[in-house]
């Protein structure tokens, strides 16, 4: 035990001597969570659109006004000819063009029917589809107003109740994700680097020749990082509560316990990476290149996992971040207790044990 404390003390010296890393370590999450919390949203608003109005009369003007009044769109350009559509799309700032047919109003009044084309730049299919739907609903609303006198209202209405996030804030979605990414990468990167660093500098050999056990070396290396990551997690949670008004419906103690569990599993993954890489460079390439995109894309952070192809849904099970995001949302937004997330918790524990087990095995092989 005395040996262990001495080892941990030494690790803290390493960490506190490197002021820059320490600054980055704590500064980075704060900057990122603030930036992303405020800036990132998967809602669509302020989309720049252009209008091609062949009819150019009172009714089309009214419709155009309605569209520009909505928060979704800002009309930045009026174009004259069909040929110009192609060129505005190619320049890339205009995402959609509304094309009112010739004699739009005349047709609407006389024939009771008129046509608008909604041309969207579908290189971004998500935005294109949403724009199309939004324009459509604005037009339908206008149409309904015109028809108020003649049609009967729908008989059945639905009363939607948006639970867990009544205001549909996208920050509720992104804060748990950003927290997960930060904890995952920082923890995995830090351990894998600090262990390979000793290998590269030759001090690992000295440690192996000493009576201190490899197991103690690894736990000793990881221990200070648990401490640092927990501080990081606390900062992030405080920011999300006080700046972004995220609720914590569930138990804070459970949240703390689950966060520590996730941190430990990320650290274990870091250890595993360090056992299979000889240099810091390799360790970092694996932890950055190998973890960054899968964690962002396959964790359910941005993209819904249930919409992915089945094989990918399967792969996503292997991403610890996915389970932690479920747990975080469960505790913070749904206010559930352990009885609802025991499965995810067990999976994280299982993964941690697995990473540790493989590391210990690999570590011994290296001594051959």
């Amino acid at each position, binding site marked *: 035990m*005395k040996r262990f404390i001495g080892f941990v*003390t*030494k690790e803290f010296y*390493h960490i506190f001597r490197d002021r820059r890393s320490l600054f980055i370590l704590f500064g980075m999450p704060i900057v990122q969570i603030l930036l992303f919390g405020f800036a990132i949203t998967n809602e669509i608003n302020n989309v720049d659109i252009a209008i091609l109005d062949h009819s150019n009369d009172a009714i089309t003007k009214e419709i155009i006004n309605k569209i520009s009044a909505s928060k979704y769109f800002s009309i930045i350009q009026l174009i004259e000819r069909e040929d110009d559509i192609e060129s505005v799309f190619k320049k890339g700032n205009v995402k959609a063009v509304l094309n009112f047919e010739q004699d739009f109003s005349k047709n609407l009044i006389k024939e009771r029917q008129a046509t608008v084309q909604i041309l969207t730049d579908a290189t971004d299919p998500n935005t294109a589809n949403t724009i199309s739907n939004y324009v459509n609903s604005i037009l339908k609303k206008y149409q309904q107003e015109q028809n108020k006198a003649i049609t009967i209202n729908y008989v059945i209405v639905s009363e939607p109740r948006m639970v867990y996030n009544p205001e549909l804030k996208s920050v509720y979605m992104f804060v748990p994700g950003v927290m997960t990414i930060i904890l995952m990468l920082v923890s995995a990167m830090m351990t894998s680097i600090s262990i390979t660093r000793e290998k590269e*500098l030759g001090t690992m*050999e000295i440690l192996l*020749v*000493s009576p201190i056990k490899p197991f103690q070396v690894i736990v000793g290396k990881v221990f200070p990082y648990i401490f640092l990551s927990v501080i990081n997690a606390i900062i992030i949670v405080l920011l999300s509560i006080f700046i972004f008004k995220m609720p914590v419906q569930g138990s804070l103690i459970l949240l703390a316990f689950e966060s520590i569990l996730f941190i430990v599993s990320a650290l274990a993954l870091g250890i595993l990476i360090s056992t299979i890489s000889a240099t810091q460079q390799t360790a970092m390439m694996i932890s950055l290149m190998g973890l960054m995109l899968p964690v962002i894309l396959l964790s359910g952070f941005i993209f819904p996992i249930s919409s992915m192809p089945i094989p990918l849904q399967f792969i996503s099970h292997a991403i610890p971040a996915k389970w932690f995001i479920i747990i975080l949302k469960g505790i913070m937004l749904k206010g559930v207790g352990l009885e609802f997330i025991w499965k995810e918790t067990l999976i994280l524990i299982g993964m941690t044990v697995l990473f540790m087990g493989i590391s210990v095995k690999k570590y011994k092989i290296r001594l051959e």
Partner: protein
Amino acid sequence: MNSNKVIQVKGLTKMFGDFTAVNAITFAVEKGEIFGFLGANGAGKTTAMKMLIGISNPTSGSAHVAGFDVFTQAEDIKKNIGYMSQKFALYDDLTVKENITFFGGIYGLSKLKIKEKTKEMIDDLGLEDVANQLVGALPLGWKQKISFSVALLHEPKIVFLDEPTGGVDPITRRQFWEMIYRAAHQGTTIFVTTHYMDEAEYCDRVSIMVSGKIEALDTPKKLKEQFQVTSMNDVFLKLARG
């Protein structure tokens, strides 16, 4: 077992796949002896040493270090040996004192003992001014001397030195060997690998490895007589060129 023999090696072999890095070497080292372990790069001396200090498993043969079997009692060996590698592995971002405290700690020395030893080392090496400086800022020669003292911190029976004097000036090397003599005089066995043939002359006995085998083993004087040359350098050249 002869209690005076602190290292006993019989037919020790290490294979990496088909490649025989160390080929059935046999030798013994007496207590308090300075034993030189020579060989060209790639002759297998570092591999042989790693088996003796318990961080590499031998393929076959037997070896006892400080009376313990390298196959089954590696952990006991570790408590009784000191080791200094060619990379002078102190932590650059720790001060001299912190390094001493750390290594004392992992060898299980008591706080009091560490304090005592730290003072002793600082006095011996004249480190008063730099004791609280980061090791990274010190000249190489100092680092080596501190590194050696740290390897002796827990008063091991045997110290293994892996090319300890690479890259330092002759004066520092001289001082370094004086430290080695002092340690040997106090009964510590020294097992040293080196490239410098003048250093080989300082050893009590020398073994020379060529392609995984020990080709010669004796005192420097007898080796020179045997090969009818005037310096260890010539002995080495004769052997290495076959």
